[in-house]
């Protein structure tokens, strides 16, 4: 009786603990042998031993998983750590043949020097300006378009939407050549317009918001119509509040895009007056000899990265949600 009970217990154990599958047949064998011997004490002892190894195995495997994950976390964090500690080292300390993992003396003057060398103040303001203006304008256009696609009935709507979706397949690099000509022709070189206008419409954001709008029941819209509410008022009072999380995701991704854009500003602007932060960062410290003052460079990099981290800390949820649906960077 006890044996049978124990046996059941053993199989229960096997069901509930995921780690020790290989052990289970052994346990069964042991139990069966002992049943033949009809030696209950022995069986109980064996089972105890088996359970103990199972527990140990589980602990070991969990520990291994943690070791692996923490190792990966260290690898991921290390560049950031290296950036931070290098940014406060003196050049002499940075160049020690045996590097220090923590600076002997924290030198904040690197930050001041980096700020001045790379003209970061000006570039920062430029980037904020371009980011804010293009985000607001882009949100207005995206909301209006998504509303039209989601709620309004007109001829050619679905066909048009299909065409828009099809353009998403084409790599943006293909547009750059003609857009370069176009903005040149418009006389937009070295202006803020050239950094903002060509990227105002993003088919992907329209698609994202349209999907969100579609989930809002149409009855609400019809009820608002009966009450004599105008479309724009309905959009402002109902649709926008209900899809706020998506709008925040779009805002963040768009701002990050401005912060990280490099190629286009590099092509169409030639002075710091209109350049964005990434251009200044890469170009201010270019020296071919390998004799760069790396601590100062790292201080600049840290300053450029800081806003992104702050945004990430406070708005992680929206960023991760937006990214998981988009898969685009910037």
């Amino acid at each position: 009786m006890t044996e049978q009970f124990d046996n059941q217990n053993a199989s229960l154990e096997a069901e509930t603990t995921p780690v020790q599958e290989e052990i289970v047949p052994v346990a069964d064998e042991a139990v069966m042998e002992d049943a033949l011997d009809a030696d209950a004490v022995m069986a109980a002892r064996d089972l105890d031993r088996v359970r103990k190894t199972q527990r140990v195995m589980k602990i070991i495997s969990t520990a291994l998983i943690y070791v692996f994950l923490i190792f990966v976390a260290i690898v991921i964090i290390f560049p950031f750590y290296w950036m931070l500690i290098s940014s406060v080292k003196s050049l002499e300390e940075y160049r020690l043949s045996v590097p220090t993992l923590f600076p002997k003396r924290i030198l904040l003057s690197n930050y001041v020097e980096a700020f001045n060398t790379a003209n970061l103040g000006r570039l920062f303001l430029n980037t904020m300006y371009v980011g804010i203006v293009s985000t607001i304008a882009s949100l207005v256009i995206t909301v209006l378009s998504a509303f039209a696609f989601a709620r309004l009935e007109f001829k050619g709507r679905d066909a048009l939407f299909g065409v828009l979706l099809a353009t998403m397949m084409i790599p943006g690099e293909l547009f750059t050549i003609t857009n370069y000509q176009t903005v040149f022709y418009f006389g937009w070189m070295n202006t803020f317009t050239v950094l903002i206008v060509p990227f105002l419409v993003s088919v992907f954001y329209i698609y994202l918001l349209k999907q969100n709008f579609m989930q809002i029941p149409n009855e609400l819209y019809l009820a608002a119509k009966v009450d004599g509410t105008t479309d724009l008022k309905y959009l402002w009072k109902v649709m926008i509040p209900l899809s706020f999380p998506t709008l925040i995701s779009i805002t963040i991704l768009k701002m990050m895009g401005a912060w990280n854009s490099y190629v286009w500003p590099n092509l169409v602007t030639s002075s710091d007056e209109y350049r964005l932060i990434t251009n200044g960062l890469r170009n201010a410290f270019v020296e071919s000899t390998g004799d760069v003052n790396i601590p100062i460079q790292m201080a600049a990099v840290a300053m450029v990265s800081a806003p992104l981290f702050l945004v990430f800390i406070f708005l992680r949820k929206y960023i991760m949600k937006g990214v998981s649906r988009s898969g685009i960077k910037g």
Partner: protein
Amino acid sequence: MADYSTTQTPEAIEKKGFRRTLDDWYEKFNKFLIKIKFDKWKGWVYLAPCIILLLIFTGWPILNTLRMAFLEGYDTMLELGGEPFQFGIGNFTKVIQYRGFKDCLVNTMLLCVLTVPISTFLALLISVCLNAIGPLSRTLQTIYFLPYVTNSIAIGMVFAAMFNMVGTAFGGENELIVTAGIINNVIEFFGGTKINWINEGSSYWANIFVMVVYIVWNALPFKILILLGGLQSVNKQYYDAAKIDATPKWRVFTRITVPLLSPMIAYVVITGFIGGFKEYSSIVGIFGDDMGPTGDPRRLNTMVGFNYRFIAEEQGRASAAALILFAIIFVVTMINLYVSKKKTHF
């Protein structure tokens, strides 16, 4: 106390009159809208800004790229000067014969083929492990996402600093090394010899290795996010069934986890390839605008970088190169879709 008598000033009455005319106008406007059946086509009005911008910055470029690519030796400046161009495929043949082109293609392909499988496999492993643990899982998840919220040029510079050797005449007789870089320090700590990763005289494969490390590091967050999301939505019953049958862990992974995750894996691989073929700024981040170590510029040039070099001067060749890039991405995506349709289980 408020002085109510002021509300009766002529100014206020006039304002009321103005209001009335405004209301009249609004009513007239509404009637006009009904008359022209505004409801039938107001969608186009809402879409107008979007459509106008798309026509200028997306529609026209598509047509114009095709046009420029198929006009022999096309150049905007010459066209503005009134020079006619002949129809032909000269741009394509010139691009392919260009000696830098093959290197760009090889570099791009190599980086794709190396980074996509490595980052996908690592991301899968990390996601499965993350999914198996309880405490700390959220913290770790946040840490793993960090590389995503970075500026790929800025962090590229950090990686460059980590691999950078400071000194002169590397590998020569008068070699003088001031610092070998933290990575080399670590290698020497474990008894290895230092390697010239990215400096003058470095080998091609050392460069590629640095790029692969950086790109994988950069690509992990997105892949982990997607795969972990997929894992968390998998029905637990499959795993319970496997436990009852005492299935070994490895088999659970290959027979349950991977098949159930296959749509997400396919998605991550496809976006990885598309992103890989457009690799550019990560290389600029590490090697600077020259896209190669000192003394060998453009060694690591990619398709996109190739494209940008022609933009200011020879738009015909740039267009042809862009179309070739598009064709490659298209074909690779189609192959990926075809394979994943056969292999995915949904």
